[in-house]
């Protein structure tokens, strides 16, 4: 079995140029990319039908969003749609193709390069306010604000997922997970209680997650027994995130979108990374979305799998 065929940027032309060529040569009827927003940093995902719409196409440092989930809806429309996939988005795309959520033949995946997207919350956390314009020079950012010009290093304001980008830089993505694992049981409980009590149950993490594409989510379906609209009790906060983590276990590609969109900046990706770390430790290295046909760890087994009480004996989890 071989992955779905895809468009590679052989001649290394600019992404905008590639988009124009694809629509011009009619290799796709529509193209999914990003549209310039009101400020420098608020680009929105958008579908471009013709060349004139491509005028406000943009591909710059603030296109962190993962477009593959939009294809669940878009690939069901008639006509072919090209989609721009950054290296981290491709895993989500493969996973959605594997689960037949994307109709493969209606989509032309275009693989584009990316050298790290920026996180506006991190820029604001440095105390930079009233942003009017951002220009890039080398690895510094010149930011023109209402309170005078400010600069900061690009490396300090990268999106969380870009720090351990699977394609570019190879940091240990489980570092924070190991830190939490090293805590005592009570400390972990307190850590997650303070983080999850911030949750306003806006479902942004679920609606943006490429692995969460159910026709009707259990949290919206009253017959499921756990449907709820608000965290009326501390338990509901944990239940929501636990069940969600469990439903995407073995299918989550660690694309980091949940943490990017969380209005309360809860480090949700740590839960999914913990599960990925466990799956790798217990059942062998597995990257969801590496290909678009293999079975995930929770839909296969080995005769000599580890016994559940390994969780009791493992060190570190005091």
């Amino acid at each position, binding site marked *: 079995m071989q992955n779905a065929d895809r468009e590679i940027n052989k001649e290394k032309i600019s992404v905008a140029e590639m988009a124009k060529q694809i629509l011009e040569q009619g290799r796709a009827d529509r193209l999914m990319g990003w549209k310039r927003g009101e*400020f420098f940093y608020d680009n929105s995902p958008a579908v471009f039908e013709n060349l004139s719409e491509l005028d406000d196409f943009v591909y710059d440092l603030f296109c962190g969003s993962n477009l593959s989930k939009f294809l669940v809806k878009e690939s069901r429309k008639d006509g072919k749609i090209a989609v721009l996939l950054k290296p981290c988005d491709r895993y989500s795309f493969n996973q959605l193709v594997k689960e037949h959520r994307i109709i493969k033949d209606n989509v032309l995946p275009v693989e584009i390069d990316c050298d790290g997207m920026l996180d506006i919350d991190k820029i604001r956390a440095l105390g930079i306010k*009233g942003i009017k314009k951002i220009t890039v020079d080398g690895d510094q950012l010149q930011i023109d604000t209402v*309170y005078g010009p400010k600069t900061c290093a690009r490396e300090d304001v990268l999106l969380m997922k870009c720090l351990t980008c699977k394609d570019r830089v190879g940091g240990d993505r489980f570092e924070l997970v190991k830190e939490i694992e090293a805590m005592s049981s009570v400390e972990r409980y307190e850590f997650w209680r303070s983080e999850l009590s911030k949750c*306003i149950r806006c479902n*942004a993490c679920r609606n943006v997650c490429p692995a969460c594409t159910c026709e009707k989510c259990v949290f*919206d379906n009253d017959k499921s027994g756990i449907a*709820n609209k608000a965290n*009326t009790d501390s338990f509901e906060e944990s239940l929501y995130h636990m069940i969600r983590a469990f439903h995407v276990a073995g299918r989550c590609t660690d694309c980091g979108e949940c943490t990017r969109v969380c*209005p309360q900046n809860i480090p949700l990706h740590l839960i999914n990374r913990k599960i990925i770390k466990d799956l790798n430790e217990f059942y062998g290295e597995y990257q969801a979305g590496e290909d678009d046909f293999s079975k995930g760890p929770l839909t296969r087994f080995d005769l000599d799998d580890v016994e559940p009480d390994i969780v009791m004996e493992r060190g570190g989890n005091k």
Partner: protein
Amino acid sequence: MSAQILTVKMENIGNLFKAIAADQKLYLPLEQAGQVQFLPYDPADDSQKVRLDVLNTVRSAKDLFFPQSENMVAFKKQGKKIDIIENREKVEAFTVFGVRACDARSFDILDRVFLSEPVDVSYAERRARGTVVTLACNEPEETCFCETFGIDAAKPDGDITTWIADGLLWWQANTNKGVKLTDKLLSVDAGLFVDSTGEAKALEEQQEKIREIISQLPLHGLSLEYFHKEELKTIFNSPKWQELSEACIGCGTCTFVCPTCQCYDIRDYDTGNGVQRYRCWDSCMYSDFVMMAHGNPRTSQVERFRQRFMHKLVYYPANNEGIFSCVGCGRCLAKCPSSMNIVKVAKTIGGEANV
């Protein structure tokens, strides 16, 4: 500036908080796990960090008057007998300090909905028991556009208005609830305030500075007059809604961070020893919003998306003498996962009229 203006040195603002919190609950913008929220101030716990520099809390102060979820009534069933138990949360007096001008205005917008007949009992009770102390924002951000709605960020309304200028906290009571709180504080600790009604020059300079910054903000001069003048049907049938709503993923972030969103859902929960009926925020962006017996009137995201902004810019003003149901706080600009927001909608639908 006719009313009396008092000042407190910024260093002993802690005593002010302790004094307020002496006999009632005080909510301050406190930092919790990296985010600033309105949380109860605990004089004994000095690990609490008060963050008056942060422009906006993610959950607006609306949460103190119209909480995300609150109990209404409970039922207990024994065989054929059902008894009804009123178990609404008892609300004591409380003060919320550090509310920005935009949030303060949102209370008026909510009052028009919840306090008009039939009065929402629990909202009214919380509004009556709550004292709002607003704090002018010294460093507005690019997402702010409260000026469009006639809000003067330099002079926020509220029971008591405070400013931070020249190392002092300037304190001015506007309503009798404000005066009552000020008198109580004076009676408890006379030395707390210094009366500097006359020499408020530093304050006026700070206000001028704020207004000057606001005039330079990118969204300065944004006008929504198009939505007043244009006929409802043409706005409703504008072809631009389809394109605008493409990026919307139907989550509830914009509605749950918005200080003027007022929709709620009533649900029952079987706790095992009785059924608890409670009210909780609902989002028009959800697919099961206003789900009725026959189904849902708005079946696709375009309609839901359009409903949200039509309500804020067309339906609400039509029922409330043209007042928009938006206070320009900029939270939805900052928090939307697809960076879609009311400013883009206004500019796209309004066309050049709004630039």
